[in-house]
């Protein structure tokens, strides 16, 4: 955990006070809604279909139990008793009243949480691997650098009015859980031939109307140069990114139009002129930040304690353990994913009561720490393996032990037309119906790893382009239709999915997905050939035939 110091706290409080003043000016009519719009967006406040929505940042997905309890408090006190975890390590509250927003933010500020730059055309919440610091084989904890970037990007005087939104993601593992290739800047920590730690910098990834997978702009940037190099990219983008067309304003379009070589050259020219910049991070500064991250005092514990051996007799426990428990870098401990995808539930939602209960379990079993992943699930990152049976019983009781992590019903979905004013179609009921269709755990297990992503419009908040099966809501003559893609992925082999055919109406989506899954089961060469690998091997044609033969 990173501990805020007096300076961090002061800044967040100053931001709350500024926003309180902005809301006051709006409520008094001194600011028009149009003038206020930019100001509220810079602080994560959207105007949705029914109410204002507040998006709160959970930087690099790390939460303390105290912070989670405070989120529960905000859900209960200012909202309708629940929150929605998003694909970018944020939580959204959908029913906040404008007049109460400053108080909600002040309550959050007390525990070091804020909503700065969770929307608007600025640098957004810096996201990272939800297993940062605990994943076996990690180069080093990427959150140190995430926090340096969080501070660097917060209220940046030059880059708060960019052509469009700008997102960073960082990973330090070979397997990318942070989806860095679909970010404006993706950073991969690695070690070069000299053993020095630095970053492969990728640029120009993004989804939306025109999806692009990020390209490598520089294979190695030393840690000390990270901020100056990032500033060079942002400066080139701020000056030359398109501002004439909102759909062409992301950096991915600039990179695409210039070509990566030319863009890289522009950045290099800018960066060279920044030599000796005050942004150079010397070791002492990095150590300062590192020193404010605390790590658990792990005990020496057995890998196979008695408790685990005994519990293995319970098939329900075993099903959960095999699905939701992952190896930890420290022997005797495990990483546990909490599924926020119950059968029939909206993906990523948690009630205030669940949040409080999870905070308590984190205190008891995970050194008071919780993580949020881009798959819209929560994680307890430091669980002693001997505690797994007890933890499972407690999680099961509050409904977050569905053993469907990474399976077909672990669906990523945006709020869609049920909440969002941008949406063309509903996302949540589609997800709910799919979880019912695939509710049988044995069937889901047989199918294996399969990511379904649903977006209610082309803005792609549900990352449909990179779902193994992607579902995109569109509007046709006033009715909800859905385009289906397959073969997308968001990991280190990120790819954009391919459309399998004409859009289908709302009522047929779940049938189509079932058809695709059945086709896969018939086509795979071995039980362990994953859906995505079958699609890669065969292309979309056999799936298209199966789906449209009878339609």
């Amino acid at each position, binding site marked *: 955990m990173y501990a805020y110091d007096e*300076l961090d706290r*002061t800044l967040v409080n*100053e931001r709350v006070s500024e926003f309180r003043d902005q809301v006051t000016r709006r409520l008094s009519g001194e600011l028009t809604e149009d003038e206020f719009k930019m100001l509220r967006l810079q602080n994560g406040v959207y105007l949705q279909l029914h109410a204002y929505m507040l998006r709160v940042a959970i930087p690099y997905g790390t939460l303390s139990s105290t912070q989670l309890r405070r989120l529960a408090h905000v859900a209960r006190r200012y909202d309708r008793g629940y929150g929605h975890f998003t694909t970018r390590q944020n939580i959204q509250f959908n029913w906040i009243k404008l007049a109460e927003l400053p108080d909600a933010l002040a309550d959050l500020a007390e525990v070091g949480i804020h909503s700065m730059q969770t929307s608007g055309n600025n640098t957004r919440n810096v996201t990272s691997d939800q297993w940062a610091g605990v994943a076996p084989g990690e180069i080093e904890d990427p959150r140190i650098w995430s926090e340096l970037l969080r501070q660097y990007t917060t209220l940046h005087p030059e880059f708060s009015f960019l052509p469009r939104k700008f997102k960073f993601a960082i990973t330090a593992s070979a397997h990318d859980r942070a989806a860095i290739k679909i970010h404006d800047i993706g950073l991969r920590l690695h070690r070069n031939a000299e053993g020095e730690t630095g970053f492969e910098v990728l640029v120009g990834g993004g989804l939306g109307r025109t999806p692009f997978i990020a390209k490598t702009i520089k294979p190695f940037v030393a840690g000390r140069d990270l901020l100056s190099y990032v500033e060079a990219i942002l400066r080139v983008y701020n000056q030359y990114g398109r501002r004439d067309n909102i759909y062409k304003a992301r950096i991915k379009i600039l990179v695409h139009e210039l070509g990566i070589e030319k863009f890289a050259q522009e950045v290099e020219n800018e960066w060279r002129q920044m030599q000796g910049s005050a942004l150079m991070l010397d070791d002492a500064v990095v150590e300062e930040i590192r020193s404010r991250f605390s790590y658990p005092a792990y005990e020496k514990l057995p890998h196979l304690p008695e408790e685990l051996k005994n519990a293995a007799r319970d098939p329900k426990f075993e099903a959960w353990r095999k699905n939701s428990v992952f190896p930890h870098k420290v022997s005797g401990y495990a990483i546990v994913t909490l599924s926020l995808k119950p059968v029939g539930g909206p993906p990523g939602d948690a009630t205030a009561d669940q949040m409080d209960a999870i905070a308590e379990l984190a205190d008891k079993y995970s050194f008071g720490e919780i993580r949020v992943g881009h798959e819209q699930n929560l994680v307890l990152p430091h669980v002693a393996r001997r505690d797994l049976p007890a933890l499972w019983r407690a999680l099961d009781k509050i409904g977050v032990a569905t053993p469907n992590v990474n399976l077909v019903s672990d669906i990523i979905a945006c709020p869609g037309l049920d909440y969002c004013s941008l949406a063309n179609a509903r996302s949540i009921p589609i997800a709910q119906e799919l979880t019912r269709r695939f509710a049988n755990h044995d069937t889901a297990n047989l199918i294996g790893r399969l990511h379904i992503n649903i977006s209610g419009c082309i803005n792609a908040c549900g990352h449909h382009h990179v779902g193994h099966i992607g579902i995109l809501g569109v509007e046709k003559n006033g009715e909800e239709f859905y385009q289906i893609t397959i073969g997308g992925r968001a990991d280190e082999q990120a790819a954009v999915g391919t459309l399998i055919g004409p859009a289908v109406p709302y009522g047929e989506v779940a049938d189509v997905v079932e058809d695709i899954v059945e086709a896969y089961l018939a086509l795979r060469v071995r039980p362990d050939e994953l859906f995505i690998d079958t699609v890669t091997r065969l292309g979309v044609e056999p799936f298209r035939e199966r789906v449209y033969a009878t339609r």
Partner: protein
Amino acid sequence: MPLVRHGKITQDAFVHVADDAPLPGDAAILISAARFLDDPEALCRRVGRTGVIWPNSRDVDDLVPWLDRLAVVALVFPSFRDGRAYSQARLLRERYFYRGELRATGQVLRDQFVFMLRAGFDSFEVKKESDAMAFAVTAKRYSVFYQPTGDGRITALHQRMQMRHSESAGQ
């Protein structure tokens, strides 16, 4: 439109002169980049002070040869949302060491003041009277800054390092 200069509402000594209007003798003038670049030598030789309104779509590099002879560089915010002039301002101050008046023009509102000050602006053609009146208070809204810019404010990172040093020195 009130002008805030060095934190106070002041009378604008500069006259905006349109491209087709005659130059008013020795008065201090603000002219467009196009007019300035037409004959920069002659304009820099004027007895009266000369300032240039520089568009946000043109590299400031073209202005660099004349910087030490200009009294004002006015950068433009065609809308609140268009942040190109922040980059231009920092480049002028931090890379080209421009020391004259750096003026923000266009849609300049209260909620940009701190960003503009940090980017190096020291004068502001403020859109609304009430925002101009609130300048002094707004400018002091923040006491903690995460990024180093040319405005000399100490960053949080360096403040922490100093605190560390003074702690260890006291032991």
